[in-house]
């Protein structure tokens, strides 16, 4: 079996986990990690599920491990913050079946709210950490991670970055090894972290660290996980250059320093194999540390008294690439073609037909409101012309920030009302406890749950509100209005509306904003990209019409363009609707004061 496949890092991790005999996997979707579980769900003999959030995923993986099987939890970098509570103590209990936690960091913030460097989680939670540098390593290290987890009795952190997750490289396909479940044995001292037991485990961890460090400096080198690549050619000046690097940064370093440098490529970066680095440093005249984001390795090298050059040259802000490394170290610029023209940015926007548009249009007309937002497609409602989001901090933050803001407004005696905007999946993730807080501690926040019937931003994943699981099985649906009522929101203050009908949006907002008590508006309409289930089709119907502008009636007032719909083209002296993109949602039709927009059948409109 030496079939070579061209796989992304995420696909390779799914393959590696399957080959390693994985039994249980759980995750909350988050770019750039989402496709790992989506791929795992395609394999036989593996159970994979979407958890409501990352904390649940890690706890479920810890439970599966304790019960004796190999388990996996995957998430984006900020997801590990949510899961940090179980993570730190999971490091104390250790495992029965091997457990691997994948953190996918996003240097450069391609699709994230920050670019935190999660290698520090390994350092502070004392977790063995592996960092693959391409797809083949992503597969190999995943398999190794399970072995090391069982050998050292610790969960293992597999740290990826966007380029590892989403770049493709050649991977050798292997066979699945079936790992029999370890029969369950009650072990209170190991798994019940009361202070008395935890104190003992804490001391055990110190012994584990010593064994792991010996492995990092010794065996990891023998099997090529931490490896020295000697210079193939001499430098012109006879001086020897050495580079310590890990992950995708190693690939950039190889392209920039070429064959005249020698490399210490680290695949295992916690514990840092300091003896190995020291030995390597002694063989070169100048030692560079090339790493993305924070000086994680450099700081540890310097603390050990190893002289090196790192962040004094290499930026710690943003994503690296070969050009940046070359410019930073050698000051050289590539030859390139320069254009006198500049292109217009192409920012993402709410899709044509997005159900959020109607609601945001109505909300954007309100004066004296503070609108706390959340993480999801609807964060795009902050962009002009809608500009109907004032904050976006973290998953679930909208409702709790709204609560604090409402209390602040009340204390200051000012006139603003507070609207908190959150998506269905984000509400399930970590908005429920925040809404409970609003009911319990009484703030007159209008909480808007934008229920588009799917987890949309990460690419259409099922969630507890959609009726299906990751593996395609039918599942019970969360009843959102009943859930809100059970949290203590008065039933008569909970309203479900169609967000594409502006009269419904406006009357719901009028009613809720006039109140001095908590209220909930649920906007229920599917994402325009959603593949309808049978239930969706019978509830919402199809997209059978498109909107057209009657040029005779149109005064080019351009009010319809204030909806921010990408199907509406504002020309020099006319406004048109692109039939191919229009879904007939009719928000523009309701906005037009001259009745110039009408709906016609799709077949007639897109010819």
């Amino acid at each position, binding site marked *: 079996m030496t079939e070579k496949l061209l796989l992304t890092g995420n696909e390779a991790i799914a393959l590696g986990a399957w080959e390693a005999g994985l039994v249980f996997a759980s995750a909350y979707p988050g770019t750039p990690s989402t496709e790992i579980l989506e791929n795992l769900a395609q394999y036989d003999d593996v159970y994979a599920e979407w958890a409501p959030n990352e904390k649940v995923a890690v706890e479920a993986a810890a439970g599966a491990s304790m019960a004796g099987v190999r388990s996996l939890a995957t998430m984006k970098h900020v997801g590990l913050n949510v899961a940090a509570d179980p993570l730190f103590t999971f490091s104390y209990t250790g495992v029965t079946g091997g457990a691997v936690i994948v953190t996918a960091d996003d240097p450069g913030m391609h*699709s994230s709210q920050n670019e935190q460097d999660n290698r520090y989680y390994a350092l502070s939670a004392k977790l063995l950490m592996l960092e693959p540098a391409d797809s083949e390593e992503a597969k190999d290290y995943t398999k190794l991670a399970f072995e090391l987890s069982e050998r050292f009795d610790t969960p293992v952190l597999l740290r990826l970055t966007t380029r590892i997750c989403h770049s493709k490289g050649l991977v050798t396909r292997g066979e699945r090894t079936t790992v029999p479940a370890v029969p369950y044995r009650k072990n209170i001292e190991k798994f019940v972290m009361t202070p008395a037991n935890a104190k003992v485990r804490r001391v055990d961890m110190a012994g584990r660290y010593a064994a792991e460090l010996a492995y990092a400096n010794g065996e990891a080198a023998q099997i090529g996980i931490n490896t020295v690549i000697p210079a193939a050619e001499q430098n012109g000046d006879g001086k020897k250059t050495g580079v310590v690097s890990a992950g995708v940064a*190693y690939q*950039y370093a190889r392209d920039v320093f070429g064959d005249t440098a020698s490399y210490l490529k680290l695949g295992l970066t916690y514990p840092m194999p300091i003896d190995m680095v020291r030995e390597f440093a002694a063989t070169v005249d100048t030692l560079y540390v090339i790493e993305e984001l924070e000086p994680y390795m450099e700081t540890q090298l310097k603390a050990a008294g190893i002289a090196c050059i790192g962040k004094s040259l290499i930026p710690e802000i943003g994503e690296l690439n070969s050009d940046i490394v070359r410019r930073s170290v050698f000051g050289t610029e590539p*030859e390139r073609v320069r*254009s006198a023209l*500049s292109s217009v940015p192409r920012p993402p926007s*709410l899709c044509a037909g997005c159900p959020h548009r109607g609601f945001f249009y109505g909300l954007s007309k309100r004066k004296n409101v503070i609108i706390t937002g959340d993480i999801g497609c609807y964060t*795009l409602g902050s962009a002009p012309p809608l500009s109907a989001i004032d904050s976006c901090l973290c998953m679930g933050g909208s409702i709790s920030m709204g609560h604090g803001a409402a209390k602040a407004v009340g204390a200051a005696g000012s006139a603003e009302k507070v609207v908190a905007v959150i998506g269905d999946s984000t509400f399930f993730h970590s908005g429920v406890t925040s809404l409970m807080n609003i009911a319990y501690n009484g703030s007159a926040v209008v909480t808007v749950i934008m229920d588009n019937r799917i987890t949309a931003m990460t690419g259409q994943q099922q969630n507890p509100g959609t009726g299906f699981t990751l593996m395609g099985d039918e599942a019970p649906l969360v009843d959102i209005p009943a859930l809100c009522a059970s949290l203590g929101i008065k039933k008569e203050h909970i309203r479900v509306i169609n967000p594409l009908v502006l009269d419904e949006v406006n009357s719901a907002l009028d009613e809720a904003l006039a109140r001095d008590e908590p209220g909930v508006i649920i906007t229920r309409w599917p994402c325009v990209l959603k593949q309808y289930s049978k239930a969706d089709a019978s509830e919402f119907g199809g997209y059978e019409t498109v909107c057209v502008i009657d040029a005779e009636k149109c005064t080019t007032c351009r009010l319809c*363009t204030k909806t921010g719909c990408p199907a509406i083209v504002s020309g020099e002296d006319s406004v048109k609707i692109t039939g191919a993109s229009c879904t007939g949602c009719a928000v523009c039709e309701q906005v037009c004061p001259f009745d110039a927009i009408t709906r016609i059948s799709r077949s007639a409109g897109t010819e």
Partner: protein
Amino acid sequence: MNDKKVKAILLVGVGGQGTILASKILSEGFVSAGYDVKMSEIHGMSQRGGSVSTQIRFGAAVHSPIIGEGEAGVIVAFEKMEALRWLEYLRPGGRIIVNDYEIPSVPILMGAAKYPAGILEELTAKADALVIDAAGIAEGLGNAKAMNIVLLGAAVRAMEGEGLGEIDWKAIMQKNIKPAFLELNLKAFEAGFNA
């Protein structure tokens, strides 16, 4: 595959234009010729009207999965303004294939900015540019959606100038395209190749 140098091709466009399938066929072709291949896709939020780019590097041994400025021997732009956006990644003397096709971005749709004029003239002045009406050619063959395969054909022709070796593109297309659309796409490839 005796040349040790890493070669690079960049495909750029807008979400929904079919760059992904074209890139997939290209990379599989390079793999079949025995190259080490790395391919990097940036399509964050592409479904919401954003730019899409696929970077392919291939050679005896490839390290970075992403292309540097001034490195791409060939750029295939599925949309004119995207050609302009990525021009700095073209190797001086490299070839840029540009689809004569405009997709205005949101600031342009809203009237807040204008679609830049004179892109084709600028590209022709600054680089070895091949302008193709891929949509027109595909429509002539019966389906405008085959535009991506027209551009693929043109890309393969341009890459041959880079020294590719024998690759059975027909077989790779057969593997990746549904039988019902194969004949159309083979014609589209041919038309692009000879454009």
